[in-house]
């Protein structure tokens, strides 16, 4: 096997001034690849006042962390991120760069790909190293998850991809694990952005964003009205989950677009997907068939969603939802 000693990099995700947990998943992806290539694993951490938090990443598998810490980098602005990453890649020549398929990763990685002329594969769900060439094989679902495509990158390194959040678990943290902290100071003109940040207003809905949720309680047209739909939030609260929705429910105004699961919404890979009153159009199934466990409740015995469900309940969605809420409340009191 050809051994490539150039580093495997992950792009740590910083939101506000915190390192987002998805950065740990990236290290789990990176560790596997780095081990099979016998190469070091490094994480790139870009932000303002992030240096003191860099140590958080070593227990999850990083051998090295490149820190770019500057007041200019107070907010995520894609153009300065691209400038900095281009500079780092030219200096240190990593063989692979992995980012998360979040709004940040899906913005900065395509721009970086165009800037440096490297290939990029979106939204991968599997990564491996080809034992013959030592090159990265990127696997991603296409055509609504009906096809899995294995993709290779040619031309100059790094080989770049984004990976779908929640498609890998972080490694068990090893608190004794230490690594190298490398502070990099790019010239300040690289850190200046053409964009001006004007503010952020958080969403008030229950739980995590659906792409990051472990448990999703989802509803469709079968919920019949917005009042019924709102009850899903109660179950989500009881189970520690987030509310999702079919396109129909979003179009009817029962849920925000940010909750939409499917081809024209978000693709999700939670541990549990609980669908109430969703018949399971092709477009919806495309967005949720990767869930570890799927439970579907629908009155129609022919509902297509039953074909991808691990547990199918043919019955009245409202009645069963109410029953579950009541029963869970009793357990918790």
């Amino acid at each position, binding site marked *: 096997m050809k051994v490539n000693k150039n580093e495997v990099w992950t792009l740590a995700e910083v939101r506000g001034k915190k390192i987002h947990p998805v950065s740990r998943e990236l290290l789990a992806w990176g560790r596997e690849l780095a081990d099979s290539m016998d190469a070091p694993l490094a994480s790139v951490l870009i932000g303002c006042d992030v240096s003191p938090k860099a140590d958080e990443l070593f227990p999850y598998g990083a051998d090295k962390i490149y820190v770019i810490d500057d007041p200019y980098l107070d907010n995520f602005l894609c153009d300065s991120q691209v400038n900095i990453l281009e500079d780092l890649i030219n200096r240190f020549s990593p063989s692979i760069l992995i980012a998360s398929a979040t709004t940040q990763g899906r913005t900065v990685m395509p721009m970086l*790909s165009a800037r440096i002329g490297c290939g990029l594969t979106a939204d991968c769900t599997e990564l491996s190293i080809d034992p013959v060439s030592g090159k990265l094989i990127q696997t991603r679902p*296409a055509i609504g998850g009906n096809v899995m495509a294995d993709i290779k990158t040619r031309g100059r390194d790094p080989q770049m991809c984004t990976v779908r959040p929640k498609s890998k678990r972080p490694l068990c943290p090893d608190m004794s694990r230490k690594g190298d902290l490398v502070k990099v100071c790019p010239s300040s003109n690289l850190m200046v952005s053409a964009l001006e940040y004007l503010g952020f207003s958080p969403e008030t809905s229950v739980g995590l964003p659906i792409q990051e949720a472990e448990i999703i309680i989802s509803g469709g047209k079968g919920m019949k009205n917005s009042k019924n739909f709102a009850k899903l939030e109660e179950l989500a609260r009881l*189970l520690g989950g987030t509310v999702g929705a079919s396109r129909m429910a979003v179009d009817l105004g029962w849920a925000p*677009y940010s909750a939409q699961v499917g081809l024209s919404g978000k693709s999700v890979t939670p541990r549990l997907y609980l669908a109430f009153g969703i018949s399971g159009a092709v477009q919806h199934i495309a967005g949720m068939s990767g869930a570890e466990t*799927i439970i579907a409740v629908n009155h129609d015995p022919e509902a297509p969603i039953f074909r991808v469900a691990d547990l*199918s*309940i043919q*019955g009245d969605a409202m009645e069963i939802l109410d029953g*579950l809420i009541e029963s869970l409340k009793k357990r918790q009191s």
Partner: protein
Amino acid sequence: MRIAVLVKQVPAVDNVKIDENTGTMVREGVEAELNPLDLHAVEAAVRIKESMPEGSVEITAITMGPPQAKASAAYAVSMGCDRGVLVSDKKFGGSDTLATSRTLAKAIKKLGSFDIILAGERATDGETGQVGPASAEFLNIPALTYVSSIDKLNDKYIEVTRSIEGGHEKLRAPLPAMVIPVKEMNIPRLCTLGGKLRAKKTEIPLLNADDLDLDENSTGLKGSATWVINVTYPQMTRQGRKIIASGRLDETVNSILDFLDEKNCLGASK
């Protein structure tokens, strides 16, 4: 003000069925349509035009694909774009997102300077969402992705709200800029009969590899940095347990709770 909208023709998925035996999408005889998420970009462009003095905004819809993709540019015209352009050449075939973005950026430059370029969040066939931001980079302009509303626009800059994980962010960018809307930005209009007639009369000019001065190493298969080495068809259907809820609700509820417990999904409620 000049606006460009990037649109793509995709296989229509609305009427697609899953083959029961193989669990794969039935694509035979499926019609093509304008990518549903691109409709929001076209709608955004037309609304900008409507908000400005008449005659002050011109919108060009640009599509890249095989000759029949012309229909997508024509559809954008029927929604209110002033003209459409087809970027097409056998040499463009097999382009990955990098080669596609490079080609589209060349086409945009060839068509003159634009103040705003709009693109859909992603196409429902490839589902990469990479072509918009990468094209912006090839044009050396900022990209505003996941935009849920345009809050302010003048001839110098644009202010937008972005829909990102956990909330909404506001940004200001100088023009020219790439703006990539998400679905929540607007409800795309249906094209009127008048629009359809206008689209029929509108010529959709062609730009090919020679027009764009692109050699075969920078576009198409040869100009691509990624390529597919293998394709598999995963089994999507699962052999799950089935319960028919009859008279006793508590029994049904208990079997769901037992199943959740078995899958360790009752952690938060114990």
